[in-house]
């Protein structure tokens, strides 16, 4: 008899983890291509190493857990591809002698942050973020000072600051030190930074694609970015800080692709509101205090608080009505 007895969610759609991850990969294509165009072969090199190492780690781990190769291929859901690509996009285009940094970070991201915790959907923190933070605290000199000057000069004709990204320059010496115009920041021309974060136009194209495909809701990244921008204005005592603070650094990349990861965000609307607003507040404050880019640390920190948020904000069951207050005499 073909009768299936099963638990609650009976209403199914064709949406699979695999499909969603493919959508995210497609949304990342513009940013990746922009990175390749601006930073050349070194960017291709970094992305390729990170991707291969991520997928390789997952396959080797599953082989160690005695899964057959056929099973691994049929269950492969592209999450490690997304992790590898995102990780590479948050790194500078490395010189060839630093080949080990993307490899080790990808192994840490997939191996430790994801597989140790039980694989896809069971990780506590976003694997790509964990990998980036690992690289950041392990190879600080290469990660912070290894910036490559992009192949396209800035449109406004001003030479970029050669030692710091526009964000660190702005946080250190105020608005005048940014060095490039807002349009440059938006297009990424003449801006130094990580492979995937400089061209905001490409990131926004990916954002629109994700919204159209209903992979993420547009409100959440917007809340994060807006809170950070407004807080920067308040701390800098000038509205002029708004655009440079949201257009520089990795804020857009983090807000669109990393903070919105399904596994590491709260389940409820109110929970998400708290999560993304807190991300914005933390990013604004920590940027001002540390004088550097802190988006990855903030996301890591808030990822850890997600179980706590979900514990206190419980979704209302369908059909639930609030009990009316019983009068004291009735008792």
């Amino acid at each position, binding site marked *: 008899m073909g009768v299936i007895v099963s638990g609650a969610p009976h209403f199914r759609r064709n949406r699979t983890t695999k499909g969603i991850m493919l959508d995210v990969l497609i949304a990342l294509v513009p940013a990746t291509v922009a990175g390749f165009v601006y930073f050349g072969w070194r960017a291709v090199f970094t992305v390729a190493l990170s991707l291969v190492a991520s997928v390789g780690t997952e396959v080797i781990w599953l082989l160690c857990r005695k899964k057959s190769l056929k099973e691994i291929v049929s269950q492969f859901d592209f999450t490690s591809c997304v992790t590898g690509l995102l990780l590479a996009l948050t790194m500078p285009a490395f010189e060839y002698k630093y080949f080990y940094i993307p490899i080790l970070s990808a192994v840490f991201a997939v191996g430790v942050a994801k597989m140790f915790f039980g694989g896809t959907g069971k990780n506590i923190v976003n694997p790509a973020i964990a990998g980036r933070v690992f690289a950041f*605290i*392990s*190879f600080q000199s290469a990660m912070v000072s290894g910036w490559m000057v992009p192949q396209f000069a800035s449109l406004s004709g001003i030479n970029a600051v050669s030692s710091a990204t526009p964000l660190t320059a702005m946080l250190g010496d105020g608005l005048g030190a940014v060095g490039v115009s807002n349009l440059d920041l938006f297009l990424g021309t003449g801006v130094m930074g990580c492979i995937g974060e400089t061209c905001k136009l490409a990131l926004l194209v990916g954002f629109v694609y994700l919204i159209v495909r209903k992979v993420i809701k547009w409100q959440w990244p917007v809340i994060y970015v807006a809170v950070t921008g407004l807080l920067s204005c308040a701390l800098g005592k000038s509205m002029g800080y708004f655009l440079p603070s949201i257009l520089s650094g990795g804020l857009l990349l983090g807000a669109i692709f990393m903070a919105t990861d399904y596994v590491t965000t709260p389940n409820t609307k109110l929970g998400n509101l708290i999560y993304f607003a807190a991300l914005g507040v933390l990013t604004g404050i920590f940027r001002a205090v540390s004088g550097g880019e802190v988006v990855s640390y903030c996301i890591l920190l808030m990822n850890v608080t997600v179980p706590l948020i979900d514990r206190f904000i419980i979704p209302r069951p369908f059909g639930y009505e609030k009990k009316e207050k019983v009068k004291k005499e009735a008792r």
Partner: protein
Amino acid sequence: MKAKDIALDGLFRQNPTLKLVLGTCPTLALTTAAMNGVGMGLAVTFVLIFSNAIISLLRNVIPSKVRIPAYILIIATFVTITRMVLNKFLPSISASLGTYLPLIVVNCIIIGRAEAFASKNPVLSSALDGLFMGLGFMFALTLMGIFREILGSGSVFGVKLWDFSIGFFVQPAGALFTYAIFIAVYSLVYSAFLRAANERKNKDGLAVKGARGNA
């Protein structure tokens, strides 16, 4: 208790760092270099031998209501002696152990062994227990120190091996990571050991107590 059991308990079966998970504070903070592990381990071993022996001697004299302050007093005496000796003769080790040297007074391993072993057992076994628990602590700390030093600074016992290093491993996050890896490997070895012992005993028709479901 037989001397062999006491030795095996301290070094392996009841290893204070890996099985009892005591004294984690110095374990996490000091294992950035292998030499720190040796220094800390020896200091703790010295204190542990003598505090265990003295507490065992006085076990029928100390009233049980005030036993903890009495233990602390005895432990603090030996910690002070250790500190003075190290300050005088090995100032470099004393400096690298820093505040963790006086903090041996409140180290859980020492108070734990006083409470769990020395207060119930004769002097000689207590001293032996102190020696092997201390050595177990030292071995665990030294192994962790070697692991973190090789990966985090590219050297062993201060001898430079290569220029490559992963900064993660000498940072606090790396300490917790290394500790977790060591406990996992220890559990793996320990359960394999128990299983093997159980199979051996099963042939004689006897089961080792606690072998099943014990990880």
